[in-house]
């Protein structure tokens, strides 16, 4: 409760939270909010590249589709990709971090060195390679993102577990005979949850940005999907005349990534017990 109150007191973080909340609402109700929900797939060549107007507030794109509608519909994709990637990365990284943090010795060493190797792999290059290997598309992009993001969770959970392992309450639990499984799942994991949540929030922003870049490079979402990165990429040929074409999808990326990062920073501050004490 105190963490939430602190978060709301932090104006910048509250602003980030507001952006994220707004994006969530937009994503959930996208088909009902978008003025032309069918423009996800339909094109209207007759009204291509119209500047912003009352009819099309964000203008239309090279196929005559309403950009506002596509930005709104794209929110859902962006968030779905981000959630899927982050959840997958957590599913891999959290157990590895727990195991490596709890144990000491060769198992821990091996797990963490493998983590380091994955940490060293450049995201975009892996995504490009996987795209070539499997088939370019949003699926390959997501696999690549998850494969390169899980080390961050492993490292975070590893550090938290190492810290908590020497915490007095863990020692006390061992003292009254609690099994390691019980200690890890019921005590260490919940105590590490704030750090994981912070990591996940920042990861969401990061994933959205990278997914957009992949879309831009043509190895992410494929046309005619209303992907923001893809839209920016498609707009390149129509610059500088159709300035509205890349601007609004680009702004959407900027805003949502910013929102997640601000929220993540705020969460980190709120979850840091040292800061909690000093602000009291």
């Amino acid at each position, binding site marked *: 409760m105190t963490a939430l109150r602190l978060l709301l007191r932090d104006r910048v973080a509250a602003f980030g939270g507001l952006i994220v909340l707004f994006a969530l609402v937009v994503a959930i109700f996208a088909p009902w909010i978008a003025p032309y929900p069918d423009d996800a797939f339909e094109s209207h060549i007759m009204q291509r590249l119209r500047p912003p107007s009352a009819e099309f507030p964000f203008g239309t794109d090279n196929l005559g589709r309403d950009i506002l509608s596509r930005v709104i519909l794209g929110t859902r994709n962006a968030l779905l990709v981000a959630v899927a990637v982050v959840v997958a990365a957590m599913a891999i990284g959290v157990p590895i971090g727990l195991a490596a943090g709890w144990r000491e010795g060769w198992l821990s060493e091996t797990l963490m060195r493998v983590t380091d190797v994955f940490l060293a792999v450049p995201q975009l290059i892996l995504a490009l390679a996987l795209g070539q290997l499997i088939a370019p598309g949003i699926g390959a992009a997501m696999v690549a993102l998850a494969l390169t993001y899980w080390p961050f969770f492993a490292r975070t959970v590893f550090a938290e577990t190492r810290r908590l392992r020497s915490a007095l*309450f863990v020692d006390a*639990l061992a*003292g009254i*005979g609690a099994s390691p499984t019980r200690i890890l799942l019921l005590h260490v994991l919940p105590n590490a949850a704030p750090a994981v949540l912070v990591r996940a929030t920042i990861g969401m922003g990061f994933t959205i940005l990278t997914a957009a870049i992949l879309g831009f490079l043509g190895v992410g979402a494929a046309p005619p999907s209303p992907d923001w990165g893809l839209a920016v990429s498609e707009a390149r040929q129509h610059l500088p005349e159709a300035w509205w074409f890349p601007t609004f999808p680009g702004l959407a990326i900027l805003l949502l990534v910013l929102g997640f990062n601000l929220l993540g920073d705020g969460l980190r501050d709120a979850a840091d017990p040292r800061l909690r004490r000093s602000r009291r």
Partner: protein
Amino acid sequence: MPEILGATDLVVELGAGRGLLRRRAGVRAVDGVDISVAEGETFGIVGESGCGKTTLARALLGLQRESAGEIRLEGRAVSGLHPRAARRVRDAVQYVHQDPGAALDPWWRVGATLAEGLAIHGLTDRAEQRARIAETLAAVGLDAAMADRYPHELSGGQQRRIGLARILLLRPKVVILDEPTAGLDLSVQAAVLRLLRDLRTRFGLTYVFISHDLSVVRRVCDRVAVMYLGRVVEHGSAATLFAEPRHPYTRALIAAAPHLDGRESGPSLPGDPPSLRAVPPGCRFHPRCAAAAAGCAQRDPVLEEAGADHAVACLRWRDLDAA
């Protein structure tokens, strides 16, 4: 009274382990300790920080594996086991941490923490758990409503009581109390000490009382062992030890304790204890000892009888007495 918990030639090595390439050498935090705690008594262990008193406690408890020596519980040898197995065998020994607030999971309500101990020991029936918890909370002088609180909502005294309740639920025979009054206010300390005394009678407990506060130790302990650099240098009944300390270290320690009447007596003890990584040869205390003689750097003293239920490990204790 018969012995309930004892150790012979106990050695505990800390920090030793296999690195990736070579074996790391550890330090001997406990180096050849004999103790014998009689049933029903309060056995004090005193010494400066780093003397190995907490390590000794953890080894007795089974949380720290001993490197050599024997540990006995109710007449049975319980040493030489892996920590998990050791804890199972030594269920009758429980430990109360120095900082009982930090020994509670901050995310768990106190009641859940208390119930967890019971669940681990096979009591999973909710109603019975609640009844046992309410009964134990009453025994440590707390309201049953306390179970709904979070650890940070408790005062220092309440945290100690919860720490006690937590292990009393497991029906131990021996309770190791690590600095049970550190950081407590005088009035709260008095209340906690009184509670400890009452609980001892009520539940038939034996206490191992680790403390650096000699006023408290003198007050509550029946017998006392003084530790220095991993060794017991003197032990005996509290009355004898405080009235006629034989070891120069014990004398300095007792002299250093501040008293209400402001008197200061006996020699001051300069410097800090040396590191366990560089244990002095001969008597470990000789570099700081005012009474050290030539032989002290060569010969390592062993505990010898200095009276009824009183032993001291000093080469010169007889001479000192005469002086």
